[in-house]
């Protein structure tokens, strides 16, 4: 069986990275092709567009043990689906407000525009974020409202209407 990373004495943050298929995921592939070494702490979940990101996903990641969440989308104006990234941005702003009210440090959730050619940015952002969260320490959560709710299908009210 595997040994999990020692989380008590040498804290290694776990970061869930939601990357859009067209820009940021491709950039992460490019970072790989170019052998740009970076912190192993981020694990990528691919979505077609950052617009697919339901705030529930971020909450689920944090609830399940992630110490931080990174969202990567195309630069403004570059969205493969016209403006999914703007939608992601609006949801992100609302979500941050909500996280703040739970006392979650705002550095734990980060949104970055990373174009397909910006492998270096993937490297830099993941390294920065790992350092930041290592400094902040593990995320200790009070029960989130969603925890009270049943299952995954339920949604919490962070959609902010037609965003």
């Amino acid at each position: 069986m595997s040994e999990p990373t020692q989380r008590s004495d040498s804290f290694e943050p776990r970061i869930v990275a939601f990357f859009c298929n067209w820009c940021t995921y491709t950039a992460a592939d490019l970072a790989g092709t170019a052998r740009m070494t970076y912190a192993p702490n981020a694990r990528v979940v691919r979505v077609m567009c950052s617009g697919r990101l339901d705030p529930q996903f971020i909450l689920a990641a944090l609830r399940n043990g992630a110490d931080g969440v990174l969202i990567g989308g195309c630069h403004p104006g570059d969205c493969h689906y016209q403006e999914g990234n703007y939608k992601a941005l609006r949801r992100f702003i609302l979500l941050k407000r909500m996280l703040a009210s739970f006392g979650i440090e705002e550095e734990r959730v980060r949104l970055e525009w990373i174009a397909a050619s910006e492998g270096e940015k993937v490297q830099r952002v993941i390294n920065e974020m790992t350092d930041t969260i290592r400094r902040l320490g593990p995320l200790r959560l009070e029960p989130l409202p969603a925890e009270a709710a049943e299952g995954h299908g339920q949604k919490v009210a962070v959609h902010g209407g037609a965003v």
Partner: protein
Amino acid sequence: MSAVNASPNGTPKVGVYVCHCGINIAGVIDVTKVVEFAKTLPNVTVAQEYKFMCSDPGQELIQKDLKDGKIDRVVVASCSPLMHEPTFRRAMAACGGNPFLFQMANIREHVSWVNKEKGSATEKAKALVAAAVRRVVFHKPLQKTQVPVNSDVLIVGGGISGIHAALTMADAGRKVYLVEREPTIGGHMAKFDKTFPTLDCSACILTPKMSQVRAHPNITLWTYSEVAEIEGYVGNFKARVRRKPKYVDEGLCVGCLECIEACIFKKGKFKDEFNVGLSLRKPIYVPFPQATPLVAVIDPETCAFFRTGKCKQTCAEVCERKAIDFNQKEEIKEINVGAIILATGFKTFDASRIARYGYGKYPTVYTSLEVERLVNAAGPTGGEVLLPNGQKPKAVGIVHCVGSRDEKTNRYCSRVCCMYSLKLAHLIHERTGAEVYNFYIDMRTPGKGYEEFYDRLMKENVHFIRGRVAEVSDWAMTPEEEGKLVIRAEDTLVGAVRRIPVDMVVLSVGLEPQPDADEVRRRFNISCSTEGWFLERHPKLAPVSTFTDGIFLAGACQGPKDIPDCVAQAGAAAAEALAMIDRGHVELEPNTAFVTEEFCSGCKTCVPLCPYSAISFDTSKNKAVVNGALCKGCGTCVAACPSGALQQNLFTDEEIFNEIEGVVKYV
């Protein structure tokens, strides 16, 4: 955990296959540990490793387990899904499996290639495998939808790349729209005198192809036109092309050029774009004698009629065919095409950005493109290399790498400058007998017959000084330098700084993306590299494809290229487009959104969110309806649906939630 019975055949049986990729993965990740770990995961019935999963024997492993009924869904932990997802899906489909009961864990690009430390890399790989296994359990068998393909093609840019692609497609019987921004096709190649290394005449090999374009029944040529808007998707694009008024009716004009003769301006007065400002033209002009189409153009910026309203309109008077039409208006053409080839080319580096080289300050400092016109028999000096004072230079310095290999301008090597500098050195030496000095950093001549050409130039007594030019200036240290331009550079092979007085300096300017490349790439929804060149889908294996299906690249818009490479790439782009069109249909990824009616509350949140108007509202049922043919699968509506009624195939909430749980709590 719920919904395990989502599997069509009862309990899901997941096969996990971990690839070594030679040492690419196995060199960093302890593959055996990952396999052992996978065996412990719920629903995993088979877990094994193999050297190259993408090879035939690798694929056969999967196929055998599928056929033996050991597994019904597959996780391959190997490279990026953007690389080999189609390979494995095909393998599954080939033996009767559903290709969408498949998930890839990217443990190469995202793990072994970006990690040096074995322990943490292995852990990360396990997490990704766990996530993929959790997720694939929820995958549903899906079918790709087939959409018919429009067999017409749009080619943007009428340089040598666009011309070659257009002729190839047209010869294959496809209908081609060739759109060019300038009044004529031909691009940069039309401005050159000779081509390296064979020194054959550029016009002699290009103009026949230009005429063929003009005459080809399958090609619609729109010059002086730009693509304004693109809608749609692979196989079914809709383009709006803006045709600027030439104020001369293309159908009537026969290219007799009488109108130009008759213009009230007796002589040229305005900078001639085609001769890069080295000569003057009239407000009514043709770019050059072999312009295609050979139709006069009136430039409203300089035409007296458009500027003042007062002109005798002698051009119109003299035209027997009444082709001149001052009332011509901009036209918008709407066309439907199945594929698009971008061949928008490059621009040359603005030499005045490097102040030390004196371009714009000393009149005898030229760019290489200007010298191309000077040595051209059809150019402003009739092919004679003459200085502004009308004399031939006795000594000429050619400065390589201007705007290339320089962190402050462009980091990349422009690839063509060494060779065209050699060509210009030869032509200048041949036409003037001048001493020619080439200042280079490294001589780059990889190509058929290129090194031989370099060899020839050295034997022609052209001087080669290995050293980047420090400055071009007009201060003299010796009597011989008086009245000359002095090039100062270290002769690095000798280890001494040299000052070389010359009469003429040629700056071998590098190639840059077109100034509006960023705007254009947005219009066509493709990406650019950091330097601004259009980004190919894969640098080695898909060099003419883009990340947007149905849009292909040809020529220097993708990166600096010489003519042979442009033509080769244009041919490749045409072939790729043909292959796509001739299939007759495209298969669309079934990652579209769908509504589970019983959950839909009819809140209409989703309706305005869709950028493609794929969601409508059924008022009788009070439910949202997704048109699968219009949906592109971004999932924005799904994220916004408050009741969970909207879901996206391959990216359902439960698939994503399970993937998240997998990556964070895999143990």
